[in-house]
């Protein structure tokens, strides 16, 4: 099956909730984009319409600017890794991602391929401060999006770095597939973890519109050079012919360009997705071998058959153990952590 090159056309239309049209971030975003502007009452009027074509929207997503209301911070889901943190939370300032990975669970989770930016980061900060009065907080802020990839539009990462630098009980994980050079851009603080998701070349070919594996590795090395904590995520692992050889090459490249000894930790996990999301994902990616593989449904979560999953985890773990101690490798296995 030939891999078709996907062409993207971002934000030809921007929908703005009437309630945030005067928010400074809204004004700032609108200044940067020359798009058709449509005012709306509530982001769900556009984002949650029935029968949307996610595949087509991923190629030319509209932007929706809105206010996040109600619950702003969530407790970590069981399919996510907590890295041993007792108080594990996540929040989503952006819904959906500018990248178009064939296997991305967001295509099954959201009813739309359009991107929502919630401008009221100050309300999230206020809620975190309330939780911090009770106990420390570990929060992942870039699960349902790629915050760093959208930095030029939102400035959210800069705000998170500043906010975290003044709160020692707060740890913030910013997961990314971007290759943004963070040097000189953000306040350096040791409670920010930039988590770079790395993929070998065969998998990268299924991660449309993303930077190459090498440029992500270089971006990680720049973040490290700047003084940030770096996490590497080999997650999700997806099986393909030449799996072992390509992960060996990828690990070698990490060692050459970053050095495993400098990395805070590594996350390792095979592909898994809630059965509820799989249906939507397969509909959005009807021609992706990655997605159409006959995964097994184990207790409501689709993943590889046990033997294959064990092979994949063991193979990559063994490769990594040549460079890094076991205590730094966090493994996700089916049946949860």
């Amino acid at each position, binding site marked *: 099956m030939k891999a078709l090159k996907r062409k993207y056309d971002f934000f*030809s*239309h921007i929908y703005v909730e009437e309630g945030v049209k005067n928010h400074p971030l809204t004004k700032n975003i609108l200044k940067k984009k020359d798009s*058709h502007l449509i005012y*709306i009452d509530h982001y769900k009027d556009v984002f949650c*319409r*029935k029968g949307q074509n996610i595949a087509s929207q991923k190629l030319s997503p509209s932007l929706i600017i809105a206010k996040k209301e109600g619950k702003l911070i969530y407790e970590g889901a069981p399919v996510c890794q907590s890295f041993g943190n007792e108080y594990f939370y996540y929040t989503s300032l952006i819904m959906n991602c500018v990248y178009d990975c064939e296997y991305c669970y967001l295509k099954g989770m959201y009813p739309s391929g359009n991107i929502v930016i919630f401008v009221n980061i100050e309300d999230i900060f206020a809620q975190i401060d309330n939780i911090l009065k009770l106990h420390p907080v570990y929060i992942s802020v870039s699960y349902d999006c790629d915050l760093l990839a959208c930095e030029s539009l939102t400035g959210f990462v800069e705000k998170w770095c500043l906010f975290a630098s003044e709160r020692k009980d707060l740890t913030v994980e910013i997961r990314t597939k971007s290759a943004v050079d963070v040097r000189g851009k953000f306040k350096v603080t040791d409670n920010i973890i930039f988590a770079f998701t790395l993929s070998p070349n065969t998998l990268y070919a299924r991660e449309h519109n993303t930077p190459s594996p090498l440029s992500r590795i270089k971006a990680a090395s720049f973040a490290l050079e700047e003084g940030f904590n770096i996490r590497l995520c080999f997650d999700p692992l997806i099986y393909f012919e030449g799996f072992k050889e390509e992960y060996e090459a990828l690990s070698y490249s990490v060692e050459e360009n970053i050095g495993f000894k400098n990395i805070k930790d590594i996350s390792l996990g095979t592909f898994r997705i809630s059965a509820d999301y799989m249906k939507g994902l397969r509909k959005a990616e009807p*021609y992706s071998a990655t997605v*159409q593989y006959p995964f097994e449904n184990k207790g409501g979560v689709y993943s590889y058959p046990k033997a294959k999953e064990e092979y994949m985890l063991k193979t990559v773990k063994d490769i990594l153990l040549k460079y890094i101690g076991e205590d730094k490798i966090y493994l996700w296995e089916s049946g949860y952590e």
Partner: protein
Amino acid sequence: MVFIFTALYAEAEEIIKNYALKKLRNMTKFTLYGNEDICLCVTGSGVMRASVGVSAVLAKFSSPEDKVINIGCAGGNKEGVYLCNKIKDNIFKRTYYPDMPPKHSFKESELITEKNVWKGDKEDPCLHDMEASAVYEAASFFVSPEKIMFLKIVSDSNGENVTKEDIRLLFKNNFPLVQDAISLFLKKEEENFNFTDTSKIEEALKCTVTMKERLKRIARYLDIKGSSIYDYLPKELECKSKKEGMKILESLEEKI
């Protein structure tokens, strides 16, 4: 197929003539005009007629790949031809948002669907018609929001009496733009992939409903990878029981 809905024959006449659409008799209660790519229906004015017309035609002839365009006149304080990005229903107080094509050469506008002819308001920046919200609501039962388009030509600014001849001329003069809008939807999409038909294998393996699903999933996966499920199956497929079929299915799953 592109389905075009207009309220009046005067709005449809140029399209019928230029695309050489033939009258299709006795297909629905509405008169249809069509060729290989286009089916046009004149519904009559107002939300009720538009709703019934769209439902009757799409229920009988459409598939989810089809596209829908509502073309017609609108009142407004600006001149020209517009693609509408927001349809506000002034009767039921609902708002609809069709997905807009990312690249086009049209001006865009908000459109308000009214129960009666709009009488004009000099401060109002929107366009006003009497069908669009009903077209959207009805069409969205059959196709997704990026497959519904609204093209409006401004005919008046205060509800003044516009004759059929005025409308016919308006559409004749603006026909190149109408044609551009139709072209946006006439572009052929990539051909669908033909997946292997597994019905004969299902029969041979005496598959249950669940086994059929598993088999289809494997076949689809191998099709996409560029191989075929037949490369992985034994030559002799006929099974005496579903238990035997299950063994073949399981060995297939191990191999891929």
